[in-house]
């Protein structure tokens, strides 16, 4: 077999076009446009393609229009705020990393929004009047930590709620009782890492579960036991191994490798490069499926994880194929480049943590947006 090649130029053209124009097949993502910004910008940063200043500024202005007057970001201009596009918007703005980008975020209102979706049991609904699952804790913890609006009270009882999502399989489900699933396991674990509580998980059981999700023939990862491989789990599942490595290290584990993550890095790179690339650009779930920006983002993110071991001090690379296949490293908690994480933290930690206006308590559908009484 010839050495696999990452189709850089084709992916770049696909991404460059998508950042401006999308066909009507994207109508189904009309309530997820900040996601489209993040998936595309993150893919470009992994490919180390620069974002022209004009484009970056246009993204900032668009995301500003997606910001809700009551805080948080919506799926599009005029829509209601939702934790998922909020996560995506903040990440996209941090990738851009200019003063203009950081200044888009109304931190005071963002904190109000987070309080408005917080539930008494420690969980968060995804939006006012919306559903609860562990994604919300990750989205909330991610944006709160990056923009320095995190207070202990905001995440009171959240770690114990997330822990209830770890089940008999060792992975985490979307809510307590559900089947362990790669996406939800990533969200729960990464949220706990942000909150400094990852040690509360049964890490050994989680480790056994996630390594068991790598497919012995395909090399890629499945999302759940006895289901099929999917390129996007290259990030959601494989991305857990850097998190667990760090968690074990913090616990004093002495037998961790100093060169490799605890998954078969080469096999994952082979799966992505040989099975998940569209020759016209873009990446995908598995052969026979259509390309899309979500899979492009997460296949590339997984490829990056598989290529790069270590942290700031210790770095070991394993690039399958040509050196040109090398992607930029990605931060396993936030899934944007580590430099952008550091830069954002540096910027926002110079600013004071806003005083929270907690009067906007968790609202039901019927009382959406109405202040629940004045103290």
């Amino acid at each position, binding site marked *: 077999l010839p050495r696999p090649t990452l189709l850089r130029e084709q992916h770049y053209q696909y991404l460059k076009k*998508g950042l*401006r*124009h999308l*066909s*009507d097949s994207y*109508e*189904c*993502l*009309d*309530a*997820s*446009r900040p996601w489209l*910004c993040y998936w595309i910008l993150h893919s470009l940063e992994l490919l180390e393609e620069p974002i022209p200043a004009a484009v970056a500024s*246009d993204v900032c202005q*668009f995301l500003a*229009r997606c910001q809700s007057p009551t805080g948080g970001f*919506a*799926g*599009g*201009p*005029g*829509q*209601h705020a*939702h934790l998922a596009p909020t996560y995506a918007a903040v990440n996209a703005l941090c990738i851009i990393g200019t003063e203009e980008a950081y200044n888009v975020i109304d931190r005071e209102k963002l904190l109000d929004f987070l309080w408005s979706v917080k539930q008494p049991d420690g969980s968060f609904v*995804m*939006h*006012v*009047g*919306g*559903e609860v699952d562990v994604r919300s804790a990750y989205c909330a913890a991610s944006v709160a930590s990056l923009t320095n609006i995190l207070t202990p009270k905001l995440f009171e009882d959240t770690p114990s709620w997330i822990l209830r999502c770890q*089940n*008999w*399989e*060792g992975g985490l489900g*979307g*809510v307590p*009782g*559900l*089947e*362990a*699933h790669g996406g939800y396991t990533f969200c729960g674990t990464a949220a706990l890492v942000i909150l400094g509580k990852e040690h509360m998980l049964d890490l050994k059981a989680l480790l056994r579960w996630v*390594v068991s999700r*790598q497919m*012995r023939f395909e*090399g890629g990862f499945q999302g*759940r*036991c*006895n*289901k099929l491989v999917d390129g996007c789990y290259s990030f959601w599942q494989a991305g857990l191994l850097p998190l667990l490595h760090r968690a074990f290290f913090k616990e004093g*584990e*002495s*037998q961790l*490798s100093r060169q490799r993550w*605890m*998954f*078969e890095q080469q*096999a994952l790179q082979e799966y992505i490069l040989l099975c998940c690339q569209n020759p016209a650009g873009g990446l995908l779930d598995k052969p026979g499926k259509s390309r899309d920006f979500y899979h492009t983002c997460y296949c590339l993110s997984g490829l990056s994880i598989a290529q790069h071991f270590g942290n700031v001090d210790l770095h070991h690379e394993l690039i399958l194929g040509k050196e040109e296949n090398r992607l930029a490293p990605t931060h396993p908690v936030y899934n944007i480049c580590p430099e952008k994480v550091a830069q954002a933290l540096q910027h926002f930690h110079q600013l004071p943590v806003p005083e929270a206006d907690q009067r906007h308590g968790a609202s039901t*559908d*019927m009382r*959406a947006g109405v202040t629940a009484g004045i103290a």
Partner: protein
Amino acid sequence: KLFLIVIVDSLVHWADLEPVPQDDGPNPVVKIAYSEKFSDVYDYFRALLKKDERSDRAFALTAEAIELNAANYTVWHYRRVLLQALQKDLREEMRYITDIIEEQPKNYQVWHHRRMVVEWLNDPSEELEFIADILSQDAKNYHAWQHRQWVIQEYKLWDNELEFVEKLLEEDVRNNSVWNQRHFVISHTTGYSSPAILDREVQYCLNQIRKAPHNESAWNYLKGILQDRGMSSHPGLLEQVLELKETHCSPYLLAFLVDCYEDALENNNQKETLNRALEVCEYLAQEKDTIRKEYWLFLQRSLESRFGPSAASGEPLADGTEPPAGQQELS
């Protein structure tokens, strides 16, 4: 349907309302090439939302907007506001949401909407049958299982669920969602504490393993129900598994053996047990489960470090640190 099309297209019925175009700004990004229908419907939707109009035409329009993009959670929220404000027939709404879910079963908003309607009606009577129908089309639909667990827990409908689980496992013993449901039902009803139940479940697992030795779900379930109680606590299990190793071997069986040995070591650190554990780890890493080589080698080093001779004798560990004081002498 034709009536609805007339509503949307008829300027007579909408003449009083100025449509609100989407404000993407002068230099849009991720600009979607909406169809004319899509733009029209959403331009009018934005107008209604701006006015907070609570009318039948608004209600009808939400259905159009949903059909064009069922993931628009703002439209769903507005539809719920209208359902209450206009005192709409919730039974009819149940029929509507049933149809929508059948068409688009992998969407968050449709299931959440159904949950709200069921709560408002305080009537779960259709749910188990409906969910069973969705599962008959995709037996692993995550939203369906989530809704099912919510209904069962909220309305205490536990009675027939184990039977449902058994039926689905007969259809596909490899359906991991069903194994999860089994655990859900039992842990919330009888629990696993009683020896009778635990034994029944262990036997059930072993029977399924004999029929389908490479079914990871059955092995995971077996481990899952025993791990907090001690894998080696179940009498004769290790022996049964060692027997199965001859005719029904699999990487899952070998992993289970490692877990049994590890559990045994925690209670009684014996050199022979450790050696067996290390041997199986080596076998898995090099031959039987090579995709997980890094993991099995880590586990091997970890077991050696925790239970091996250097752990007790005071010799430095591989990374040059001293072992903790007060370790038990090996027998």
